[in-house]
């Protein structure tokens, strides 16, 4: 009740806020009522906003002793009926990896925001980067899929955080909002929506005692307190939740289902934005903060007569391979501006037969339009 009353007061209000604040606000609108976190630049503002706002919607904020505990508390809260999120940056994201795997294995819907900063290790703590793209996909051990989205504006950060909650509930899977320090800290205009008009995916709960870990592609959840004595374990388990770590078939069936439920839903999950792709001979593929100067570069080059298109990836995982295959068949070269040494460009190369040229920049400063333009002109000749 308190939640709707408060969020209604924000309806149609315009704000000039940071990406971090937009992620926190998106979470509140999505129905998040639990946040556990640990301070880290450049993500601390998310925790700060949640600490102030959650009590207004009858939710709970807790600052844990580290990032391992933060995601642990989030997973515990979800099984106790909460809708929960944590937020961090590279070093904390590294610490969370084991519990991300636990969330995959136990099919726990939750959202992890990673406002990426320059690494490895402590790196340039206050500078943004896009260095955790592969860690988001492969950071935890064992076979698994991942869902990760990458916003490139403040409004989109808000919208994608809501989307992340929806995807996590729909697929019973952790979802990562892969922001970068630039998007986390720049300020832009945002308009809050009418809470009543938002599409929020509710948690699918079992109506009666059933197998909460199998029997169908995405089984319904049995939360604690539903009087069904659910057993939740990160060990290999049968569809009833009971541990079976020695039967080959049990593990095979479980892990294949966990992967298939995401892999077979690629088309529903994948989001991207195409611009100027009708007549293109060349293509720029980018995402997050680096997609902004990429767009500027494409506009400048088109003004000079080059037939170049732009594909902005919004979903990074599962990888948007179909659209990349489709686009790459029609171009001579692909350019990939990103703030790392080629994490997505290598992945793109796996799906096309044309040259994929990384336009990498590290050091904590985003690309300028002219840097991208020069690189493309050099390669095109």
């Amino acid at each position, binding site marked *: 009740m308190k939640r709707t009353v408060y969020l209604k007061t924000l309806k149609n209000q315009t704000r000039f806020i940071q990406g971090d604040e937009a992620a926190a606000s998106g979470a509140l609108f999505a129905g998040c009522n639990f946040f556990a976190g640990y301070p880290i630049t450049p993500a601390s503002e998310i925790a700060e906003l949640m600490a102030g706002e959650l009590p207004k919607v009858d939710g709970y904020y807790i600052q844990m002793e580290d990032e391992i505990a933060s995601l642990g508390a989030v997973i*515990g809260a979800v099984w106790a009926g909460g809708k929960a999120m944590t937020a961090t940056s590279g070093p904390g994201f590294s610490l969370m990896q084991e519990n991300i795997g636990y969330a995959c294995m136990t099919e726990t819907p939750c959202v992890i925001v990673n406002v990426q900063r320059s690494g490895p290790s402590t790196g340039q703590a206050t500078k943004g980067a896009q260095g955790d793209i592969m860690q988001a996909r492969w950071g935890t051990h064992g076979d698994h899929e991942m869902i990760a989205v990458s916003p490139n504006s403040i409004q989109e950060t808000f919208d994608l955080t809501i989307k992340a909650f929806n995807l996590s509930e729909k697929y019973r899977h952790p979802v990562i909002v892969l922001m970068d320090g630039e998007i986390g800290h720049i300020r832009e205009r945002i308009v809050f929506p009418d809470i009543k008009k938002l599409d929020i995916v509710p948690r699918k709960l079992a109506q009666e005692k059933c197998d909460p870990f199998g029997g169908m592609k995405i089984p319904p959840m049995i939360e604690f307190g539903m009087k069904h004595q659910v057993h939740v374990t990160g060990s290999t388990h049968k569809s009833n939740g009971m541990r079976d770590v020695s039967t080959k078939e049990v593990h095979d069936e479980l892990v294949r289902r966990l992967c298939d439920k995401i892999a077979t839903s690629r088309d529903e999950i994948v989001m991207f934005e195409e611009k100027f792709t009708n007549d293109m001979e060349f293509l720029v593929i980018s995402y997050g903060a680096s997609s902004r100067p990429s767009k500027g570069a494409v506009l400048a080059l088109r003004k000079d007569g080059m037939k170049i298109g732009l594909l902005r990836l919004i979903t990074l995982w599962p990888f948007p391979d179909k659209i990349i295959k489709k686009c790459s068949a029609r171009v001579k070269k692909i350019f990939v501006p990103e703030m790392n040494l080629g994490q997505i460009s290598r992945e793109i190369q796996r799906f096309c037969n044309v040259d994929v040229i990384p336009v990498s920049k590290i050091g904590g400063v985003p690309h300028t339009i002219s840097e991208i333009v020069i690189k493309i002109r050099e390669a095109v000749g």
Partner: protein
Amino acid sequence: MQHRLLKYLRRELLPTVFCSGCGGGTILNLFCHIIDEMNLEPNDIISVTGIGCSSWIPSPYLAVDTLHTTHGRAIAFATGVKIMQPDKKVIVIAGDGDLAGIGGNHLIHAARRNIDLTVFLVNNNIYGMTGGQVSPTTPISIKTTTTPYGNIEPPFKIAELVAAAGGVYVARWTTYHVVQLKKAMKEAIEKIGFSFVEICSQCPTSYGRRIGRHEGIDLLKDFKANAINIKNTSKYKKEELENKLILGKIVEKSRPEFVEGLKQINSKVKIKER
């Protein structure tokens, strides 16, 4: 006729996997007695465990909601559970490697916060499931698989550590002293705030075997022989208390509980409707 306590267990999973002579069965047995004697509704209990033999005591045998977490993190997961379902008895059971080793940070911070969890640390002085490696509670000079020349690290006095960190109920008993242990476990469950019982338990397979105590009963006899009630410690010289098991209630006090504090904040924050 089936035993009256069997209803508290997931019977289809029995017998347990514990080695013969293990203390785990005694603790599971006590747990069932406690639920019965305290008239607890099993659906009002949420059991959270870590990784290791001790975590297998309730997960999965106890027929309550059971959350079997990552290694060392049971208290962190339980913190989220308790905040969202404060009316439930949230009980953590895990071992010394789990709670005093890899999860030691969560243990002291939960005690500091005084969140209303009940933690039973089953201390068998060893990493049992992985085959007998030295743990943070292994006594000095003991030979384990990873201290082949004898342990040179002094062990944690883990109950005293929790008391110092702010636990409001802290006790230590052994699987030999079942009557006193059961009473302490009940008091810990009833106590509002962070309550903690260190349960000294025997692991003949991975610990006893290496110190010349091949049977569970040998270790239980040691518990009996080495026990000194905390009320009687003044009768002994300091050096006489070394290597003894000081048993009993170490702390019982009251201070504001964490989730109650969160709820008070929420009731203070008022929203004006436009």
